[in-house]
């Protein structure tokens, strides 16, 4: 197991490097550089900026250096000093802006992942065991609908319905009195209440996909001879199903975290923008539109890194669950 863990962690390093290069390229794509944008902004507000200050800023961020050197300056500032550069839209260092939001994004994605599992597992098992029953058809139909509705549309519909029929607005993650308050039980509870709608919105498409996977996996297992043997031994039906076929059907299920997680983070971005959640989504959109490149790059980098780490955890989980994976 230890060798497997080491191998997987080592394999992750090139991926992380590649992700950082992609994020850096995204920063470089818009025409002009950070300093020209800053100068343009200052002159728009009527201020002039001293050319020597501009030159100094260029020097500080190494903007006169070749691109590969700029990359090394950027990435080593991040790795060694935790310095992601400055957001010129907000006028503060990027690191001051992103950590809270990344934390909330993580909470949202993880809750949605757990929701997806808790809902998809029983429905998937039911659909497979009671194949072609009314419940199975209803589940399959809902699964298809869930796959076809884009996240943001579902968010809009839920927002409209709750506004129209309950008279409440469901955006944000905190009530007004808790928004800037320090963490307390009351605030956590408030967050929990506000998470319900975003989690449902985010979890729907993932749940739909997992129900179908679980159903297919379990159907492959249910008619194998070992199940008949167990039944012949006189094991009660539900105990039998949970003890043997469900366990082997779970394996491919665990490995799906690898691709559910990137999807959840993607979905969380759009959903957060519609529901106006204080996660990375709205900040990323705003920074992209304002060409606040360091902020945008930092967020794309960190979201990807989080996803890759999540995928690593799911791989390790799978290896722990299913020893065969380790020896491949």
């Amino acid at each position, binding site marked *: 197991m230890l060798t497997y863990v080491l191998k997987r962690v080592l394999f992750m390093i090139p991926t992380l490097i590649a992700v950082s290069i992609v994020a850096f390229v995204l920063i470089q794509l818009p025409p002009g550089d950070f300093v020209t944008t800053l100068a343009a902004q200052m002159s728009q507000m009527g201020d002039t900026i001293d050319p020597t200050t501009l030159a100094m800023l260029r020097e500080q961020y190494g903007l006169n250096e070749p691109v590969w050197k700029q990359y090394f300056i950027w990435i080593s500032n991040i790795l060694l000093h935790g310095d992601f550069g400055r957001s010129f839209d907000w006028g503060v260092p990027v690191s001051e802006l992103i950590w809270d939001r990344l934390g909330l994004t993580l909470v949202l994605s993880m809750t949605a992942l757990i929701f997806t599992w808790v809902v998809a597992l029983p429905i998937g098992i039911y659909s497979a065991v009671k194949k072609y029953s009314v419940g199975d058809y209803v589940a399959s139909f809902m699964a298809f609908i869930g796959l076809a509705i884009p996240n943001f549309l579902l968010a809009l519909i839920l927002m409209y319905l709750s506004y129209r029929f309950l008279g409440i607005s469901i955006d944000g993650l905190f009530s007004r009195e808790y928004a800037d308050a320090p963490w307390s039980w009351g605030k956590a509870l408030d967050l929990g209440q506000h998470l319900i709608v975003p989690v449902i919105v985010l979890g729907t498409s993932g749940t739909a996909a997992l129900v179908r996977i679980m159903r297919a996996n379990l159907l492959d297992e249910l008619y194998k001879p070992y199940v008949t043997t167990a039944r012949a031994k006189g094991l009660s039906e539900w105990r039998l199903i949970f003890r043997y076929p469900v366990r082997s059907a779970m394996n491919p299920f665990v490995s799906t975290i690898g691709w559910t997680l990137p999807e959840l983070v993607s979905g969380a971005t759009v959903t957060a923008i519609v529901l106006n959640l204080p996660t990375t989504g709205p900040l990323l959109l705003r920074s992209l539109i304002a060409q606040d490149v360091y902020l945008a790059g930092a967020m794309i980098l960190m979201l990807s890194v989080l996803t*890759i780490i999540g995928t690593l955890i799911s791989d390790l989980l799978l290896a722990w669950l299913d020893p065969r994976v380790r020896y491949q």
Partner: protein
Amino acid sequence: MGQATTTAPHPHASPDKSVTDGRLQGLERAGAWRLFWWKFKKHRLAVGSGILIILIYLISMFAEFLAPYAPGDYGARYTYAPPQGLHIWDGENFSLHVLGYDVEFNPESYEREFIVDPEQKVPLGFFVKGSPYKMWGLFASDIHFLGPLDPSQPMYLLGADRLGRDMLSRIIYGTRVSMTVGLVGVSLSLFLGVLLGGISGYFGGHIDNAIQRLIEFLLAIPTIPLWMGLAAAIPPTLPPLQVYFMITIILSLVGWTGLARVVRGRFLAMRNEDFVTAARLDGAGEVGLILRHMLPSFSSHIIAAVTLAIPVMILSETALSFLGIGLRPPVVSWGVLLQEAQNIRSVATAPWLLTPGLAVVITVLALNFLGDGLRDAADPYAD
């Protein structure tokens, strides 16, 4: 169907004449495409969805004629006018009409309110004269499939938007852009996917390893933030058509991975099949072997994978345009239309702004069902 049998891999694929009476000749004498078709026909939901998709593409082809108005036609008097019901009976006779509006000023909310007035009848007709257009940029005409007989009277079957533009017409025009984004994006993905997946599966070894790592890497990045970053880098001054192509290129950057996996899997499975060995011993070159013998034998799988990739493209374009970093007005796509519904205030005053979403959901559902049916049919010998 018949002409495809020549490229089928099965040694006893029959020439055209002997399969004319279909089933009588038996399963083992039917060509691959015929088997594909038989299997597909059994999947009724998929066949229905296929017909629906063809209809949607027809709508997008004849948008100018089918839409009652041009997408930019606005009516200041009818901002946020609610949808009118279509009536076909006036109590005694058949008469196609909608009911007109009365506009009232609500003194409490300071808003204009539309009230449907049963006294005002707006007679409708087929093939009526309306706003002029140029079909496919070639034929000038002003005949519309359905519209009010008197062009000055209002007809808003799905309501009107902020500028009093007809939602139905805009959805019909949006079909053109949204559906072709899927097609163009998938064609690009298909090219990349078949090329890289083919190389990966055919040559194997280090090349395969490198391409597989690349795919895994692309799948590990959350796509929406990546797309957002790329789309935001498109200069806002670019003409709409170029933005359109940039968006499709961005979408296919990730989209090819799924297709590459399918192609690679097929190549790996087929590399050691007898008919491939036979062709190789016959002196077929590498390129000829791939293009003439291997590709045709799994093109049904590729068609299925392509069908399942189109809805992903459509959903992505919709999401990007909705956020305001994809296609931009005056281009009309479903995502651009949904942009109008971005905040809860406008959705609360005009819920019909969400109708383009319904078009998205129906299309995506139909494409998924169709793709599922095609995928099942691609393995005609299974069960």
